[in-house]
């Protein structure tokens, strides 16, 4: 009897420290990876500014929610950041459209390889965006979540179930997973069912033929940036609510996001989501210390002395690299058949 309780305790432990964090981290990566996929499919370059754009969107949310709190425009229990997101998305859209007008549009007009030129231009935008964020908000880490921190806490869970090991569901985790499901459902509906969404897919598939069919390329590009603004702002805010805001951290997010996109199959939205969860679970499963988990499961004589941690957390970014290398060696097109767009 005690054995089965131990097994339940072990999995409660794993749920609390691995599954829930990986699900929410994976959702955050997935939203970022979808934004990268959209830019890649329509504008045909890998957007290096994605991480810093997420920081920019989060910055807008931090300022707005600060202002709203000072005015008392809050709802009890709900993070004010959530209420600030819609306005921040508008701000983010304006910023991205401005960058498109000032930077990317110029290079689109030039008949040279968009994949190379776009990447180079986006690296410039990355530095500008990162600079703006650090200028206004500073480089130090900060927390901006208010409202209830937990949907249910470890103590509440323990009291409810009587288990020795508790599971807590953070508000940020709950919001992340819920919003990610809603956004992904919206994106797939938009791309599969609406005329504008189909036009975007057509443009991504065969640009010349899309023009011959009367699809307005400028409109497709505008809508793409609006969708990117939506995904970027929400992904950045959710990541910040979960782990705190630090510009450098956002900048480095580019790596797991790119890994997700490539692992899943470049240009495939489903692939981006699958890749994001693969990367998130790998990072957390490999850096988690299993000592306590094994103590629950193994007989006393076999209890481990070490932490049983496969890789130190400081190496977590290396995991993205390793996954990337393995996929590129074994299945270069990614889990879902991605397509590399060749410049015409």
């Amino acid at each position, binding site marked *: 009897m005690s054995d089965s309780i131990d097994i339940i305790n072990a999995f409660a432990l794993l749920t609390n420290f691995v599954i829930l964090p990986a699900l929410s981290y994976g959702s955050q990566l997935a939203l970022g990876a979808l934004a990268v996929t959209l830019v890649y499919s329509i504008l045909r370059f890998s957007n290096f500014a994605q991480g810093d754009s997420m920081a920019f969107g989060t910055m807008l949310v931090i300022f707005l929610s600060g202002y709203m709190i000072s005015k008392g425009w809050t709802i009890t229990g709900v993070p004010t950041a959530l209420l600030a997101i819609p306005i921040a998305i508008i701000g983010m859209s304006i910023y991205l459209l401005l960058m498109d007008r000032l930077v990317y549009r110029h290079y689109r007009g030039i008949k040279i390889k968009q994949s190379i030129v776009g990447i180079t231009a986006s690296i410039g935008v990355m530095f500008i965006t990162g600079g703006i964020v650090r200028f206004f908000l500073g480089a130090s880490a900060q927390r901006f979540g208010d409202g209830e921190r937990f949907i249910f806490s470890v103590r509440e869970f323990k009291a409810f179930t009587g288990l020795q090991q508790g599971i807590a569901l953070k508000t940020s985790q709950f919001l992340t997973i819920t919003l990610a499901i809603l956004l992904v459902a919206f994106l797939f509906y938009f791309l599969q069912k609406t005329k504008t969404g189909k*036009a975007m897919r057509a443009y991504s598939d*065969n640009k010349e*033929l899309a023009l011959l069919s*009367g699809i307005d390329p400028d409109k497709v590009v505008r809508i793409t940036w609006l969708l990117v603004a939506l995904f970027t702002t929400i992904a950045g805010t959710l990541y910040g609510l979960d782990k705190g805001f630090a510009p450098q951290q956002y900048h480095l997010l580019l790596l797991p996001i790119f890994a997700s996109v490539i692992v899943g199959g470049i240009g495939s939205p489903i692939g981006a989501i699958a890749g994001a969860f693969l990367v998130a679970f790998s990072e957390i499963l490999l850096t988690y210390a299993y000592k306590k988990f094994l103590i629950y499961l193994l007989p006393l004589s076999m209890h481990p002395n070490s932490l049983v941690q496969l890789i130190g957390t400081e190496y977590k970014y290396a995991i993205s690299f390793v996954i990337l290398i393995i996929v590129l060696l074994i299945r270069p097109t990614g889990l879902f058949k991605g397509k590399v767009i060749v410049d015409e």
Partner: protein
Amino acid sequence: MAYLEGKNLVASYGVVPILHECSVEVEKGELAVIVGPNGAGKSTVMRVLLGMLEATSGSVTLDGNDISMLSTQDRIAQGLAFVPQTKNVFPSMTVEENLQMGGFIREDDISKTIEEVYELFPILYEKRKQLAEELSGGQRQQVAFGRAMMTRPSVMLLDEPTAGVSPIVMDEIFSNILDVRNAGMAVLMVEQNAQQALNIADKGFVLVSGRNEHTGTGKELIKDPEVRKKFLGG
């Protein structure tokens, strides 16, 4: 004046001159074919007619109206439709979605036109939920025709519709083209398979180095000993 007329077209790619006073025309319900050796400027004529390449001089008229200054998209809206030689479908979209995209600029109900395309190409109805990239070459060509027909065009421009297909599929495609013509459209096509194309053509233009070398009905051109010798292999 013919329904679609390109008159005395002069065009170049950068500094390389391609067309020198070249003229082509086609009437409604007529199939006109442009043939000629490689590099004669056959595809360039199409690009100029469509406004994808600007002519240095000359004019393009549709039903008597000068459309030379219109953009490609506006010409499509005026009734021109184009089936490019390669990359003429949206590969990762279904057959039905390809047709819907063909009718993108239309504000009215396009479902009736989709029905008409299915009537003309029944196999597309069976495959309507399949991705275009999963179809055979001939079927894909039918999707390409169908997509172009969605704007209910009066003129259909085809760039080497039989390039790289087997003889059986070629016959199938030519019979599709005749169906399109018999539906009352003006069809102008560029073709490598000169003999077969002239056989079914109402009108032919032989282009050499961007100039009209011979013009006549398909039958006349096939019988013309000079054309036979130079372009049809004796």
